[in-house]
């Protein structure tokens, strides 16, 4: 066991990419939702994932986490140089993937504080995190996500990711449904969090880009990544022309899966 884990460490040291998704195709209930996805995130880089509703962005995250409904039919996911395609969720997470969900489920009787204390047993550090996202301490006694407002869900998710730590931070729409004031708080916290870390961030309108520096952006259409490039340039195009701009793109046409 010890030798094996040393080997993994060794390999992970050598790999340039913290995440390397190779030719990944995924089905849910027999329906293809991701098609030959290739995505490399080098260590220390922050990547943005754009795409219209239903294009497969969140599905990619669920597949990265290994949720059982998402069946990998071909390709593989390399994390820190190790093939994690068949690992259970909790093992992937322990290797260093931290995800902030877009629509997390409410769980009655399971307290936000209970989860946070499991992730970060140091009460002092936890209180510090709470202060940073401007969360009142009595929020810890709330049932997780039960009756949370949109903004509270975002804050609670970021808080959990902060407590969890990890080397690859994945944020699914951290900026949607958040008011201006809270957006500033979250943006600042996320920016600090991403220092020296790698990240994959899904955003619709790119509001979060006002607060963070991203290295690369990708556009997902119909389950494939059809375009990659400068985040601000791609965002500009999307804001100006919408995703029609991608549909017109010759390169994107050849890459798109025909389902």
């Amino acid at each position, binding site marked *: 066991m010890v030798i094996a884990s040393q080997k993994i460490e060794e390999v992970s040291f050598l790999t340039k990419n913290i995440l390397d998704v190779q030719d990944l195709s995924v089905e849910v209930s027999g329906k293809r939702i991701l098609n030959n996805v290739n995505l490399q995130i080098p260590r220390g880089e922050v990547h943005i994932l754009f795409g219209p509703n239903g294009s497969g962005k969140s599905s990619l995250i669920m597949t990265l986490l290994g949720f*059982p409904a998402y069946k990998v039919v071909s390709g593989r996911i390399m994390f820190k140089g190790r093939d994690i395609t068949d690992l259970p*969720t909790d093992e992937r997470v322990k290797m260093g993937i931290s995800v902030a969900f877009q629509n997390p*489920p409410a769980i009655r*009787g*399971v307290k936000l504080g209970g989860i946070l204390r499991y992730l970060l047993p140091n009460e002092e550090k936890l209180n510090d995190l709470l202060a940073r996202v401007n969360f009142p301490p009595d929020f810890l006694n709330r049932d997780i996500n039960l009756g949370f407002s949109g903004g509270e869900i975002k804050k609670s998710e970021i808080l959990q990711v902060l407590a969890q730590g990890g080397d690859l931070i994945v944020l699914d729409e951290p900026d949607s449904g958040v008011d201006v004031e809270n957006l500033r708080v979250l943006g600042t916290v996320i920016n600090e969090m991403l220092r020296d870390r790698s990240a994959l961030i899904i955003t619709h309108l790119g509001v979060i880009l006002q607060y963070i520096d991203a290295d690369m952006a990708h556009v997902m259409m119909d389950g494939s990544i059809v375009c990659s490039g400068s985040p601000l340039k791609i965002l500009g195009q999307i804001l100006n022309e919408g995703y029609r701009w991608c549909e017109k793109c010759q390169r994107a046409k050849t890459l798109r899966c025909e389902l």
Partner: protein
Amino acid sequence: MSASKDAALRAINKPAALGPDLDISQYSRQPKNWEPCPISSLPEDIIRRALEVGVLPEQESRSATFFQIDHSVIFEAVQEVFEGKIEIMSAKEALEKYDWLKDYWWKVISVDTDKYTALAELAWDQGYFIRILEDQKVTIPLQACLFISTDNLNQNVHNIVIAEPGSEAQIITGCTLHSSVQRGLHVGITEFYVKEDAKITFTMIHNWAQKFDSRPRSGAIIEDNGVFVSNYMCFKPLKSLQMYPVAYCRGVNSRARFNTIIYGTGNSYIDVGSKIVLQNEGCRGEIISRVIATDKAQVYARGFLQGEHSNTKAHLECRGLLLSDEATIHAIPELMAKAQGAELSHEAAVGKIAEEQIQYLMARGFSRSEAEALIVRGFMDVSIFGLPKDLERELQKIVDITTERAL
């Protein structure tokens, strides 16, 4: 022969309206004989079992204690600082002491309800009398333990709880048995009288054995502005349990609340309900139950709200979590309005653990079994019962120990 004996004799073969019918002649009426003694000098294993149902050996943590083993009362005492504020003694002693007590005897529950109430009249084995005196607010809980030390014993207790006007108290009753006891029948009659402006929080915890039968019969009458809160918890397997306690909100603005947590395991047959009857202006009622069924347990979760007066309101919430395909949860919520302006509502939901919830927790690093345990424990969160903080902590501890063992 008294009228109640007469009625009992006529009802002794009358099956209960619900639950499997038991042959009451199959149980023994030969108890072990126990001499009075302090609880701390009881055998270690009895103390431990009592602790599991919330009964503490240290007298200073409780304002008063009643302890009965089989048919013998072995301890009854009020802590010195609470003397003159509360009374606790065996019901037999109380009936001899207070002539007026007969006006409280079989007045909420009918002696001829079924063979079990009849049995408690014809073969009566003590039980407790608790009285909180007028305007006394007792901050530390009273406790009572009904213990069975003899295999296949039949124990029939009749308890009376009177909260005089303006009084307040919490009572914890633990019913359990020695680890050598497998079979038996416990019948517990409890009649509550919550008078004007009084408040009683009554918590009953049951730990029985796989071949054991239990038939509690409880009822409460609540006068003007009175509050009755009943908490019931049953976590260990048993052969059969059937009860359907009822609270009559008789006075203006009187309130009743039933909180129930059932963890059905093994081959248990559990049929537990709660009923609230709203009989006057401004009455309020609430029934909350949480039922988990695993292995081959069969659990009926009933609830009945009856509105007999205008400007009354009550809600029933029943949630069931099924952890095995061989187990059953049958939720039966009922509402009956007999007066315009009685607002009654219910919500009931039965299902398995949502896979989405498990995955979410696994994405936080919990293993699948840890995630399931967390969800089950959360399902039995006692903080929704709105209890005093100390009591809430005590009950949560009991829940936690049980879930830890079970999962």
